[in-house]
């Protein structure tokens, strides 16, 4: 389809596509994505402003009010400590989202640095990639449990435990992008222009990794939220005193037959959040990889 390329003769006016309009394009690309964005925004905003939104203290124990069914006072009922479930779920979003976003940022950052090194420095590549292979070979959840046991179950530990197993995939991604980008003529032109390795990485290689990393980041974010829930389920999660979606479900699971809502409500919110994040990730990928959008041929 070589004939479809631009046939611009004169330089067109300055491009007015800003990041903001780009985001708007992505968000409004389909009604499902729009809905996902709105739902995610509600979850995120209510988590951020939880302190003002929730009707009850999410941490304070009131044993006399334990396991109350949903009512006007307790919209979704209470848990086994007499804490308001609704308040805990809303507040729990904070930890879960911090874990999700934190793990995504940390994994992407660590993976970016290591991936750049592996992609650009030949001798380091061999060593790094063996280590990355090794890390990938160790089962994620088991690695995470071991790390949490090692440092004790704090937010930071859980974050590290979830991040570390995600790093290898990012390293591989960045490395492959770097390996293909460094063959690009404009990179070779930069080499010919005497640019330093650091400048070439910063200017010509890193920007190429941004799009795939944003996409990968959304997936890591989603999977981190789930992993946090699984760690809580296995008793290796964040201190149960602090609400997170994972430990609300983990603590509530024995009450499943008494009040299924204790598991299902946070489960629903987790699913909605992850679904939204994944859908956004897909939308971003479709937008950033225009080849995808034009695929398909009439029959």
């Amino acid at each position: 389809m070589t004939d479809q390329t631009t046939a611009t003769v004169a330089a067109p006016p300055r491009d007015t596509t800003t990041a903001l309009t780009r985001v708007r394009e992505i968000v409004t690309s389909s009604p499902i994505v729009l809905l996902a964005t709105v739902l995610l925004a509600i979850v995120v905003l209510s988590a951020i402003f939880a302190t003002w939104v929730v009707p009850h203290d999410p941490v304070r124990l009131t044993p006399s009010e334990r396991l109350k069914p949903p009512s006007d006072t307790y919209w979704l009922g209470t848990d086994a400590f007499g804490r308001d479930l609704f308040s805990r779920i809303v507040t729990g979003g904070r930890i879960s989202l911090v874990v999700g976003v934190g793990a995504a940022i940390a994994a992407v950052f660590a993976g970016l640095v290591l991936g750049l090194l592996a992609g650009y420095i030949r001798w380091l590549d061999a060593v790094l990639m063996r280590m990355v292979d090794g890390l990938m070979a160790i089962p994620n959840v088991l690695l995470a449990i071991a790390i949490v046991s090692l440092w004790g179950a704090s937010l930071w530990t859980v974050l590290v435990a979830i991040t570390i197993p995600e790093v290898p995939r990012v390293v591989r991604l960045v490395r492959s992008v770097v390996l293909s980008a460094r063959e690009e003529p404009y990179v070779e032109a930069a080499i010919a222009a005497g640019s330093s390795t650091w400048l070439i990485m910063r200017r010509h290689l890193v920007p190429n990794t941004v799009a795939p990393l944003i996409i990968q980041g959304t997936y890591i974010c989603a999977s981190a939220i789930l992993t946090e829930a699984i760690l809580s389920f296995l008793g290796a999660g964040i201190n149960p005193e602090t609400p997170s979606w994972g430990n609300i479900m983990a603590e509530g699971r024995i009450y499943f037959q008494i009040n299924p809502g204790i598991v299902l409500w946070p489960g629903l919110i987790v699913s909605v959040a992850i679904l939204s994040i994944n859908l956004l990730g897909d939308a971003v990928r479709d937008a950033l990889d225009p080849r995808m959008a034009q695929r398909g041929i009439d029959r």
Partner: protein
Amino acid sequence: MSDSLLEISNLRIALNGDSDKQVVKGLNLKIQPGQTMCLVGESGSGKSLSALATMGLLPKVLSPLEGSSIRLKGEELLGASPGRMRNLRATAMSMIFQEPMTALNPVARVGQQIEEVLEFHSDLGQSERRRKTLEMMDAVHLPDIEKLYRSFPHQLSGGQRQRIMIAMALIMRPQLLIADEPTTALDVTTQAQILTLIRELREQQGSAVLFITHDMGVVSEIADDVTVLKLGEVMETQNVDNLLRHPQTDYTRDLLRSVPSQVPRPPRSDRSEKIVLKTDDLCKTYGGTGLIFKSREVKAAQDVSLKLMQGRTLGIVGESGSGKSTVARCIMRLIDPTSGSITVGGQDIATLSQKELKPQRKNIQIVFQDPMRSLNPRIEVGQSIIEGPLNFGVSQEAAMARARELLELVGLPASAVDRFPHQFSGGQRQRIAIARALAMDPDVLVADEAVSALDVSVQAQVLDLLAELQERLGLGILFITHDLGVAAQICDEVMVMQFGRVVEYGPAAQVLGQPQQDYTKALIAAAPGRHWDFANFRPFAESAPAAGG
């Protein structure tokens, strides 16, 4: 009813069915049985889309508008059922494509890919199908057909792959063959063979050919009639001889004038004896390493010695795999030569470390083939241009001022510094790439197939620009190309390479005019349209004394 085999009338193809976004604007075309019609145009002319529309294979986003019509033997194809279209394909009309490597299924044996056509369009039994397939493979002059039958596409050469495509297209003896730039991706000698084959089979089978190309040389070799397209509109339709001699429109005339002549430029008087670039016995060997299992050794370049004077142009000519680009990349030290020396600015740079090399970088700059990829799409072109000068300590303001000057020098507005690469066309981008190279004030400019990806009219402009710059700045240019015409037009000296070795090296007039080596002769003989002096609208045979007039 008309007796035309194919009749396209008022074909309009639009993006998303929006009549404001037409990419083909009312194409009318008739092909008689047994006739070869060439559809000629530069990129964006809509020539391939018209062909795809005929086959019913347009991409989803594009669709023919109301009122368009494509009739094959009187049968309307637009709006025909998918089933009917499937039946017509391969039996009544077939298509071959530009890039035979990607057009063949990489994981299926080529014999089976041909045979598959019979499976769906004939009632032949399995052994019968196989026999017929082998017969067809033989008919397209493939060697060792029993073995090739079982081969995978990547095991074949480019020419063999295109022969497979042709066999596949013609095995059901369709009356119409659509050939979409079938030789563009091939080397010039292979191209000549494929063109011969298409002609031969057309005569044997009596089918009509709709031949799509951008290359006037090819047109002169194969066409009966020619339709010239520009930006989706028909410029003119004529018999090929008439068209080449008496083009009716300015566009066609410009197009023909832009075709580089096969006749070497007249030698220039030597203005300088200063050597700006010299290599001695340059070698590059790939592979041959590995801890336990040695990988196969490939000698990409062997004992290449060349000299480039100030203000002169040295062309390296060769087909793919000849090692011409390897030489260029070694000279730029984008890859490390295995042995030999490279002298730039009076110093041997072949073995310098990247750090020691840096001061020498400004003496030699490169322009690449692909205009889409040679500029970082994410930064403004001004930033791309000044990157080199900044590395050498030039201030931001001074470098930017120089960038503006250079852009004007290469024929672009100074304001282009603030724009992004995607806002420019291919030719404009190549100009920017040249400006970027010049920003370093180099002694030597390496142009690695720098005009090969450009449309012929744009190519002519860029070549003119290079010549003009050389005149003004006294640049030494190392010009890598596969196109003999281009080489003939701008080179003072020419080096012909094959399989990593230098075949012939000397003044352009001598190498291209009186070639000594068989390979050089074969190359020249294979160049399509070599008998035509397109720029002067006549064959050379009729104008021998007036060459270059």
